[in-house]
């Protein structure tokens, strides 16, 4: 008794498709052809959209944004398991998740283009906007989880994403703990893409894994190959099912990699070796999944070509829509500051409109 081992823990690792696209039959999820194609389309759309955003940004047609190329499996796999009644609480590097959720691409563009309209998702409910303050959305997910359970919404869960860097923030810790204590139906997915801007994982934490951070909260944890869309689907599906069944939250670490810059304002050559990137390019989640589809005879070069054309057409249309001027009153922000009007705001609105007038005259003159 004097010194004895009292508690034991382990962190398991899940991979379904290996790096060559070979599937582990035991673990292969039971997905229909349509579901598989939906997942693949989601990833391709995310990739193509990302590349287009990069061009738009370089052309000055879009603001700074955070590319997600390389992380499509981690973002899209779980979305295939998410229902309409579930809540989605994103960070800022889950383009694929937003698009699979049904958020029109033009809204994403509007967000990065500097318009609040980019946070309004017509017809898409229960989907929070991008969270810019790292980790701050994690307690929101816990609160949403509490709310849906409190309301007796059976079969409803909450899915939230964040990065490896976010796990250092107090809000990660507090949000995870609340969810665990409340047994809230929340699935926490950390996209461990190895970097937080220029900070490599080993300066972020010296734990052997990110997954083990969930042990602090008494939460089931799993480490997943985040470039394996099937594994991500499987892990998220199981966790969401557990959440819906009332068995509480789960923490999933998705091991993946940020193939591009942190944001378009960032120059990764300052802090990381090209070789590292090459190595991860070989683990491209799209290539791997395509091989799997091929091996199931669901895919070929022609289908790929068709898909790319369709996706690009969609993107073109959405870019056009994005670039259609937004027609709103210039003082809309004064309407939005609070739900109830107040004299000081109205006074300032009047000042503002007067000033706009004055400056426009000035510009005209």
């Amino acid at each position: 008794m004097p010194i004895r081992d009292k508690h034991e823990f382990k962190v398991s690792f899940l991979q379904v498709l290996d790096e060559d696209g070979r599937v582990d039959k035991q673990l292969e999820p039971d997905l229909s052809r349509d579901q598989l194609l939906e997942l693949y389309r989601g990833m391709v759309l995310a990739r193509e959209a990302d590349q287009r955003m990069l061009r738009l940004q370089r052309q000055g047609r879009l603001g700074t944004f955070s590319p997600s190329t390389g992380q499509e499996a981690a973002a899209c796999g779980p979305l295939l398991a998410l229902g309409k009644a579930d809540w989605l609480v994103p960070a800022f590097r889950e383009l694929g998740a937003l698009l699979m959720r049904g958020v029109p691409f033009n809204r994403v563009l509007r967000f990065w283009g500097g318009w609040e309209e980019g946070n309004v998702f017509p017809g898409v409910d229960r989907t929070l906007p991008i969270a810019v303050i790292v980790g701050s959305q994690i307690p929101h997910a816990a609160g949403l989880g509490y709310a849906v359970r409190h309301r007796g919404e059976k079969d409803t869960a909450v899915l939230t994403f964040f990065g490896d860097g976010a796990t250092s923030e107090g809000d990660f810790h507090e949000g995870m703990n609340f969810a665990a204590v409340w047994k809230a139906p929340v699935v926490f997915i950390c996209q461990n893409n190895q970097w937080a801007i220029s900070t490599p994982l080993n300066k972020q934490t010296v734990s052997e894994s990110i997954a083990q951070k969930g042990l602090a909260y008494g939460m089931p944890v799993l480490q997943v190959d985040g470039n394996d869309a099937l594994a991500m689907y499987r892990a998220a599906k199981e966790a969401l099912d557990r959440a819906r069944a009332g068995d509480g939250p789960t923490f999933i670490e998705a091991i993946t990699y940020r193939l591009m810059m942190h944001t378009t304002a960032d120059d990764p050559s300052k802090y990381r070796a090209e070789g590292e990137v090459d190595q991860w390019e070989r683990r491209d989640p799209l290539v791997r999944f395509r091989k799997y589809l091929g091996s199931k005879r669901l895919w070929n070069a022609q289908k790929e070509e068709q898909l790319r054309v369709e996706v690009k057409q969609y993107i073109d249309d959405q870019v056009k829509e994005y670039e259609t001027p937004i027609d709103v009153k210039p003082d809309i922000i004064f309407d939005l500051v609070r739900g109830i009007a107040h004299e000081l705001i109205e006074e300032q609105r009047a000042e503002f409109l007067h000033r706009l007038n004055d400056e426009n005259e000035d510009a005209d003159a």
Partner: protein
Amino acid sequence: MPKMTMVQAINLALHQEMSRDESVLVLGQDVGVNEGVFRVTAGLSEAFGESRVIDTPLAESGILGTSIGMALAGLRPVCEMQFSGFSYLMMGQFEGHATRFRTRTMGTYTCPLVVRMPYGGGVRALEHHSESREALYAHLPGAKVVIPSGPRNARALLVAAIRDPDAVVFMEPKRSYRAFREHVPEQEEVMPLGKAQIVQEGTDLTIVSWGAMMRMTLDAASLVASQRGASIEVIDLLSISPMDVSTIIGSVKKTGRCVIVQEAPRFVSISSEIVAQINDKALLYLEAPVKRVTGYDVVTPYFSRETPYFPSPRLIQRGIEQTLDF
């Protein structure tokens, strides 16, 4: 109904609102079984159960952050910071989300929540238990900050705060929690947010105050009135933000003299803004500089030294006299 303390009146508001609206819930440290360290949440857990009266882990940012999540889902959480001195730990969630979701999503999502917190000095408590920092919250666009001064308005304002469509910081002057009693009607009473109250009319001088300073202010005002026959108008600000500037301006235009009494330190405070509003809108009516009777711009001393660091009736009286004599 017997007269009530402010603690009882706030408790009444919580009971009635929780009965009225299923979506209202209460969360915070020790608010359940223990009924709050000041017993403000007495009986709630028993009446409404653990799922609507939640004893949370010890984490202020987590308390507000999860309350925001609940509010986004359509609930109306009333969360408690055990003391305002620990509320700065949730400043990130407050500045970054509670005040912003409405603008950010153009009204698609809002945060109908209340953050209750006891604040202020005068109860001989430990460090961090005596400050008045309403200015920090009031500066933030989108925030609402409410400070009651007595049992009756505490009840009526808390009801309004709970029903408000946005985040409201509800600061409770703990020095007034049990200091006096007032009649509080059993039936519902709601005071609009954003409105000050003229609690005493007068023509010679306007005093603006709020929270625990109101009682002292009224005492000082009646002393000066009786000693010198001055007619003093007293405004209870109640809503710190948004501020009922027109009531203040209307009064100052009438009296030409103004004293502001505030417990908080002076620098960049609510009193500064009131002076600035008077400058903006009633400068030419002033017959004397606006006088600020406030706390000092020092770290609140430990409780054995604290008394002279807060305004006193005597200090307020002097401020009034000085302004009348200017």
